[in-house]
């Protein structure tokens, strides 16, 4: 067996990582922004078509609103992704982050955050494409 077999290794990470309180909330943050963007887009379009433009009306104003939502969502997700990537790049714990050390845990949280941000970024673009191609409420 390689160095994996050391039964209990614990306090071998940089001190600031040991001490740092980390939360799990970075992991769901990016997909939560996707969800908020999705819901806001859906609700805006629904209200626009039901109350403002009418069922045969133009989506023009709603499209600009959605463009705004999309911009905000993409910037926020990108910031989370960059933060995740920075976490992931910090320290010298080796991939695949499967040791019982604070550094492994730190890099794992960063990497998962980054991956979810990437997925959420793509998924937000998917949703936004709908209003690129749809001009009316019909």
């Amino acid at each position, binding site marked *: 067996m390689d160095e994996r077999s050391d039964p209990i290794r614990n306090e071998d990470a940089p001190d600031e990582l040991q001490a740092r309180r980390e939360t799990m909330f970075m992991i769901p943050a990016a997909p939560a922004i996707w969800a908020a963007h999705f819901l806001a887009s*859906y609700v805006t379009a629904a209200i626009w078509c039901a109350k403002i433009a009418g069922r045969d009306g133009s989506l023009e104003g709603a499209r600009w609103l959605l463009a705004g939502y999309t911009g905000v969502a993409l910037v926020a997700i990108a910031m989370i992704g960059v933060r995740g990537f920075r976490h992931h790049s910090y320290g010298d714990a080796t991939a695949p982050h499967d040791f019982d050390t604070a550094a492994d*845990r730190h890099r794992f*949280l960063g990497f998962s955050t980054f991956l979810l941000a990437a997925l959420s970024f793509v998924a937000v673009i998917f*949703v936004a494409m709908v209003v690129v191609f749809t001009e009316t409420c019909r």
Partner: protein
Amino acid sequence: MNARAKLLDWARTRPGESVKAAQERRLSKAWETPKGWRYWSAVNNTEVGLWYTICAFVFFLFAGVLALIMRAQLAVPDNDLVTADQYNQIFTLHGSVMMFLFGVPSFEAFSILVLPQMLGARDLPFPRLSAFGFWCFLIGGVFVCGSLFFGIAPKGGWFMYPPLTTEYQDGYGADIWLLGLSFIEIASIAAAVELIVGALKTRPPGMRINLMPLYAWYVLVVAGMILFAFPPLIAGDLLFEMQRAFDWPFFDPDRGGDPLLWQHLFWIFGHPEVYIIFLPAIALVATMIPTFAGRPLVGYSWVVLAAVGTGFISFGLWVHHMYATGLPNVSLGFFSAASVSVAIPTGVQIFCFIATMLVGRATTNVPLLYVSGAFAVFVLGGLTGVMVALVPFDLQVHDTYFIVAHLHYVLVGGVVFPILGAIHYFFPLVNGKSLSPRLGTIAFWLAFVGFNLAFWPMHISGLRGMPRRVFTYEAGMGLELLNMISTIGAFTLAAGLAVFLWDVVRPKSRQPLSPRNPWNAGTIEWAAKIPPEPWGARTIPAVSSRYPLWDQENFLDDYDHGRFYLPDAEEVKRETIITTVIDAVPIQCLRVPGPTWLTLIAAAGAGGLFVLATFKLYVLALLCGAIGFATILIWLWTGTALEPEKEEKDIGLGVTVPLYASGPASVGWWAMFITMIGDATAFAGLVFGYYFFWTVHPQFPPAGADGPGTFWPLVSLGLLALAWAATLAARGLIRREHRGGGIAALALGALSTIAGVAALAAGPWLTGMDPTVHAYEATVWVLVLWTGIHGAIGLVMQLYCIARAAAGRLTARRDIDIANVALYWHFMLATIAVTVATIAGFPLLS
């Protein structure tokens, strides 16, 4: 070398056998399974999980028999084996049972059974809650299934669309569906709360978040999804039952209602439900694949991404079941986009599994056969899923057998095959004996060939226009041969399942016990001895790897000799370790409760409430409800927030932790928080109803309708805010040892609660709002009803705390009760604020 490693080394030099025997004697006594008829009072995860799993499987077989009756009926055109009415009942129960009584419960059952073992814990934090959930599930399931034998089963399809089920179907069927399944949904949510807290707080020391078994990641994601998916359906069920029982017109367009509201609420539940069923089965695959590849899973973080990503995106898909309802195209587009993007994380996890198989040295055996079959079938179902995610294609195949083929490829491939493989895999761990590889192979091939024979032709019959849910079809439309092949396939699949079932139930007394860890797996559950011991983990291990049995030297020997944590039960009490969420540092030694009949009595009382209410026997129903309620109070009083005989306990390896914790450090606080998140989601479903009606009506509230006004709602808001403040003040006073002040504050809170609820009802009451006139009145009343019931629950909590404080069981250092009640009241304050803003504030704006 750190302190823990030194202590472990020291422990290895100690003579062990006599100490070990004494420890095991005490553990056996503490965790003893009740004997004789008392066996059914057991609450331990090994018993409850097993019963739960067996019951779910029995329901699966029942629904499978229903499917065979349908296939027999459809084998030839113009068949009359069953009548149209019987056929409707059969397909409705087939879908409902597979989804509600097999799909979700089998995950929860199985997780209750194996999650503690995967985490090296002795039990989940709330064993009695698991037992209560199981008994609710059993009662509700037997009730729903049994209705078929009286010819009164629900017959509106598994989604119960109004107006079919409100205008055109008399009898009890829809009520049985609504009340029976609501009851089971509550049990499902209870299990979800248990599993979330279990995965986050009962991990063994050292098992940081990056070392958690992937199964536990999936449990977290899926239980979280249950928490957000089931409550909207409970809200929908409430609206639906109010319409059926009391004629409140939520779904009646003549009186301002809209059947689409039900479709939204149903599918906000119904689509995540598919993933709630699918992800746990994938979790089983993720558990089995590393074992058979003989190496760690490739792309652990990527699989976490897939699980979490799918969990979120699956909530943006619900309208793809409603493409044909006439919503604006732009709305359909959003859901089409999300439906396509969910394929990304789903694909990622499949690629991780295939990569693991490729880089490992895969061995051939029965569980792996099922996993491979699952991949083949599921990928086909996934591909047709991308096809039907596209609106123009879906409009062509909507409500045809193409959809039947698609969903069975997804669910049988994605769920049934992995579960069958997992039963084969885990059987020695539960039973001590192995299943037969020969019978397993025969069963697999029969099931695999039979399945494809049954469902592949349905793609074609669907494209040729055969609609779903018809009890027969005419000859000469090109459907005869396809349907005959499907029926032959269905019976071949059934033959495979029969062989599987025989393998499970055949007598095995002459068969030798399975060796320990028969598959040479790396995860902790396989450290268990065969046959299994009632205490679960011999000692709660110190973990430093994702696969401790492969990576940690001397692990099994240390485990067997109890050299890790909590190897003993000195006080002969049931105990497990609570750790922190991220880094799994031990923070508490939790005493978990033992056998009791209270859970069974409470479930029977609650079951009586739902079952009798179905038949409109309201007095008897309320009586049963009262019995259930009283039992729960006794359960709380005698079995929760127990006073330990000492403050701290040495759990071994130089660690001493408290025996009592309250507030965010305690598991009860987390359970309350998680439960209230689910509760708030149901409330959001009701509020959604109000604003949904606003979007579909030109004017809402309708012109001329009297609202509840603003005066009484505001008075109610003020009084309930006062009740909230008084409860918080009571918490502060009790923590500062002012018992009298605390009781007085709680009494003030209780009085304000009563007055606040009365004031809330006074608004619509005094303006004479009649909930049967229009959906507007009905919606206002249902929000008032919901908030009022929550006020009543808050009142019970306040009174309970007064009694606990008076009895000396709620003190400055023993404050679990008031901490949890204060948390409830935060949610209560938000509920009344939203209710008042909606019913009194919104009419001023529109």
